[in-house]
């Protein structure tokens, strides 16, 4: 099962510079495990040590944010297109307060 994954600049050090890689899996968790097997270290940039989707990235299945599709449990199908974008966020708020607010 082939799923196309678009990788942002900041994570291309894990994919040998590739902008698009292929993976497999019937859920987002399975896909990320598959990607991590081929591109070691990628998982740690997408999933927190507690096992949740990292707040610093947005992951989309086709045109939907995975947070609206069950996050890591999102179901994937052959031919789906996954886009990973680094979240664009920040501001004057202190980091501890922002982290608490966002559950980083």
């Amino acid at each position, binding site marked *: 099962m082939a799923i196309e994954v678009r990788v942002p600049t900041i994570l291309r050090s894990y994919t040998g510079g590739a902008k698009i890689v292929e993976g497999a899996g019937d859920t987002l968790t399975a896909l990320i495990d598959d990607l991590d097997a081929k591109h070691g270290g990628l998982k740690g940039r997408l999933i927190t040590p507690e096992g949740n989707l990292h707040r610093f990235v947005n992951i989309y299945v086709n045109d939907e944010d995975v947070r609206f599709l069950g996050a890591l449990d999102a179901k994937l199908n052959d031919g789906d297109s996954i886009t990973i974008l680094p979240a*664009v966020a920040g501001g004057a708020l202190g980091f501890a307060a922002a982290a608490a607010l966002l559950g980083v």
Partner: protein
Amino acid sequence: MGTATVGVVNSHGNVNGVLTIDSAIVQAIVAHARRDHPDEACGVVAGPIGSDVPARHIPMDNAARSMTFYEFDSMEHLRVWREMDDRDEEPVVIYHSHTATEAFPSRTDISFAGEPNAHYLLVSTREPDSEEIRSFRIVDGVVTEEEVNIVDATVKA
């Protein structure tokens, strides 16, 4: 007597440590920041990939609608990034405002900075009649301030 060869003078891209940006775009960014004050404003200036020329101003919604935090709406983010991709553009500038503090990246800004090729432009609107405008590279948690060179009429905003 030797004659120096003058390089391409109409290109302002790829100069280390400088953000060169059109005054009309800076004015549009400042107007956006003023409009959203006291909430933080945020957005992007897209430009052709590899050009280092910020050419197309795209104000973004601050989904957090906060005086101390900004965040792109995730769906608008995807739409705008796809549009840039289709146009062979990249985010040359990512900007936001600080509305009560200086135009310097906070720890939060540094932690989230995920576009190593972008100029992070900060505008402070804490003074009612003047703006502080500063630009930074943020790569792997390291902040490097750069000069902001405001020029006239290179592009239409």
